[in-house]
């Protein structure tokens, strides 16, 4: 049996985290378990879990370490965290707790944006931005695809930049389809289709997410968030309106 953890705090976004976890449970076939690290009264997470019929495990100790240990538990295949990064009214990519877990876990973690509304519909369309190459595609093929048991549409997005634009394209109106098909064959054979765009990767990810009405964005990442690294992940998280699943690239 596999378990998907929903990390509930006492903020308003905890309900969204839980609803997201429930939909991800449908997607993966995993059982949902809620966890809460006690910092004060636990009424709110207890009530939320009870309403959803989900078992809640209350943990005591430092929040970051407790959460990280819970995510690393046996049978846990993924986790859902709130971004919790809207302090002082200014939206940031991600809060410190979530970032700590994301950088150290070896499991996929879904980050729920702070202003997202509750997920009430099943997740059926996943947007997977891919650079191409084994490092970006292996986590999707090896980690994401085996996890998903539901019938979903996997839409790959590749964004051309000045550095990655195909050098030669005889008839783009026809060659791009060919190029995309070959890209999928090499990088994500399980995908339903591919979208190709040009420009800033993060902007295009969020644009296409809206155009496609994607339910989730799935990104592989290097787990390094030091300045100058993971800029795409940071930008996507800052502007995303749907949960973003980050899969460590091993």
């Amino acid at each position: 049996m596999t378990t998907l953890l929903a990390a509930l705090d006492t903020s308003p976004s905890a309900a969204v985290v839980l609803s997201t976890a429930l939909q991800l449970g449908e997607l993966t076939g995993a059982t949902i378990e809620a966890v809460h690290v006690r910092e004060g009264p636990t009424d709110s997470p207890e009530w939320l879990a009870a309403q959803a019929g989900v078992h809640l495990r209350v943990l005591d100790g430092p929040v970051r370490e407790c959460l990280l240990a819970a995510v690393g538990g046996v049978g846990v295949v993924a986790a859902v965290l709130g971004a919790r990064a809207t302090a002082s009214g200014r939206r940031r990519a991600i809060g410190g707790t979530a970032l700590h877990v994301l950088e150290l876990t070896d499991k996929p973690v879904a980050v729920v944006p702070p202003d997202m509304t509750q997920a009430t519909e099943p997740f059926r369309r996943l947007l997977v931005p891919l650079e191409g190459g084994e490092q970006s595609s292996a986590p999707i093929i090896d980690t994401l695809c085996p996890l998903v048991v539901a019938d979903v549409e996997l839409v790959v997005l590749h964004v051309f930049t000045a550095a990655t634009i195909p050098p030669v394209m005889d008839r783009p109106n026809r060659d791009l389809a060919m190029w995309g098909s070959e890209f999928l064959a090499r990088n994500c054979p399980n995908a339903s289709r591919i979208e190709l765009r040009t420009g800033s990767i993060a902007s295009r990810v969020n644009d296409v997410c809206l155009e496609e009405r994607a339910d989730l964005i799935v990104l592989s990442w290097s787990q390094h968030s030091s300045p100058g690294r993971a800029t795409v992940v940071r930008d996507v998280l800052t502007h995303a309106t749907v949960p973003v699943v980050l899969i460590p690239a091993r």
Partner: protein
Amino acid sequence: VDATRFEAIIVDSSGWSVAAAGLEEALRARCDDLRAAGMVVHDVDSGDAAAIAEIAASLAARGITGRLIAVVGDKLAGHGDVPELRRAVHTPTPDDDAGFDSLIRLLDHQLSLRADRRVPAIDDDPSWVVPLPTDPVMDRVSEALGTLANGWVGVRGRREDRQPATVSPMLVSGVYTDADGQPRLLAAPDWTTLTVDVSTDGSQLLDLRSGLLLRRGRVLRTLRLVSAARLDAMGLRAEGRASTLGHPAALAPGDSSTPIEVCTAPKIQAARARSSDGGGITVAVQDHENIVGKLRVIERLATVAADQRSVPDWDRVTNQLDDLVATGFDRLLADHREAWAQRWANARVDIEGSPGDELAARFAVFHLLGSTPGEGEAAVGARGLSGPAYGGHVFWDADVFVLPALAAIHPAAARAMLEYRIGRLPAARRAAQAVGLAGARFPWESAATGRDVTPRRVMGTGGEVIPIHTGEWEEHIVADVAWAASEYVSWTGQPEFLHGPGADLVLDTARYWASRVTTEGDGRGHIRGVIGPDEYHEDVDDNAFTNVMARWNLRRGADLADDKGLASEAAGWRQIAASLFDGWDAERQLYEQFAGYWSLEPLLIDQVAVPPVAADVLLGDARVRGSQLIKQADVLMVHHLVPEEVEPGSLRPNLSFYEARTAHGSSLSPAIHAALLARCGEPDRALVPFRMAARLDLDDLTGTTSGGLHLATMGGLWQALAYGFCGLRPGRDLLNIDPQLPSEWSALALHLLFHDAPVRIRAEHDRVVIDCTCPLTVRIGAGRPQSCRPPGHTFATGDGHRHPQRTTP
């Protein structure tokens, strides 16, 4: 040595000791047996150097070289200066009983390799063998690179255990089917799949010299051929551990949208795929299987019959197969090797000083030779027979890029391409008539019928509808077809072609332009609303390339019309040609690519990216359309194709101007720039675009090689070598030669046919060596015509012989 199957053995028995006389008899018996089994066996005196050289040459003419030859005898080892024997496998003269025993074992082993139908070897000469990518993600690229084709049938180099095929493994020239209103080459039934229990590895080696694909791995070894000697025949041998390699697989559909009908008879399997037009492709195979120790050895002989209008019946392929089985794999292989040796005799490229450039050039010529049959008619699609991209549609790629190369190295194939156009003249005439014009309008994209099959729209990757205007506006194809016919005559020296079957290719296209040009108030002729080779700019007026090519077409047509007694029509065409606006800007000493081009945003490619780059994908169509960035050689293409039609001395300034604006976003572009840079006396700079073209498919620069090889790039590459670095220009009575070699190369040698006679041109930095079998007139650089008598002549090419820009014949 023991593991290799040799195709020839050269023995010097003169030194065999008398003491071994009894064994000598046994050896001679083995040699007789080997001859009977198809091996070439020569007994030669090591002192007879001429005989040895002759034997080596005769073996090479049969495609038997290097590691396929065993040489027995100490003194024969001294003949390493015979090129064909340089890589032969030498064994010492036996001088005692043990030595003779060893030699007998070697010969016995050779006999058993043949009797057991084991997988033959190739001569793995690195200058002729291309290792294909081994990374599984590159499988489809590897398949395209490893295509074996004989001009009529193309079989991709798909690994035999990869199933199902994701790209049609086999295509037949000219056999199309309709899919969603668009013709595409019909996917033939797949005959190449083997049943293998485990995922197998191993390298694949494409032997360019002999047109063979060898796979050698720990688990599986295979050799495949598509016969160059007999167009309907194909063969495969495989061997692997019996626990791993299963029985041969059944014939399978070539792709998921093309069902097949299967017919099974004792020992034979056959399958056919039907086209939407009532035609089809039928394939039949017969397998032979045996166990040798722990190995299972499979031999599969396959034959194909195809027709655009009717489905070949079972009896036909069964009869073909019976005949093929009677011929046998070894004979088929020997004939195939010999046929490829004959092909290369007039097509070989040697580049001394750069093995990488040489191999890439040979790779291109190999696929050019395989793309087109040497008889009948040839619909040569943009990706040849190596993949399904563009449905196998025929573009100007065939006429302007592929045909000139074939006219020089395989004229019968070039003729077949022209026959394809001749056969579609009625459709081209109807197309002209449909838009109220005279003559013949060839379509931008053509397939079986000759009607325009350019899609009017495609669905973008996001499901959006994208209109395509090339079918409507890219009219220069009309003049391109006429130019191809003329260039064919220049190389082959067959003016009767243009006075006979090819006449209408020039006359009806001239008639088209005469009706298409409008004379306006300025007294000049104009052609409005076209797309030139630079497809970044659509619906433009007076595209220089289109207008100059139309002018050339009108003048060429007028010359021909005069010969045919059509003086009045000829006079009219000359008048229109003289009035035709060509964009020449005397003040700038440049051709304006089209009306209004000077006023566009003066963007340079360096300001955007390092070429090559798909600038339209990067910047978007609107931005590129409003700028001077261009996709490919356009004005410069005129300098390449019809230098006699441009202002004298205009190449250099135009090359300088347009090179700075060219994205090389088209695979057709780099080779032409290489040719022109070389003509401008900048061969070292020319190497950069030359290598872009040379590596285009080998490095999958487009990301679309999986859909087939870029045949026009390969034709362009040959043109860069011939017209560019070698400075060749075929004239009516002479061959112009003006070499410009990059400093990195010490020599460039091309084998070709000029006016039906084999010529070998070897260009070095200070001289040209010409070998010929018939008297030939040449002009070196800007010099006077000189005669060159067999067997050839060496000409100095010092500064006094050079000319800054190619002279026109």
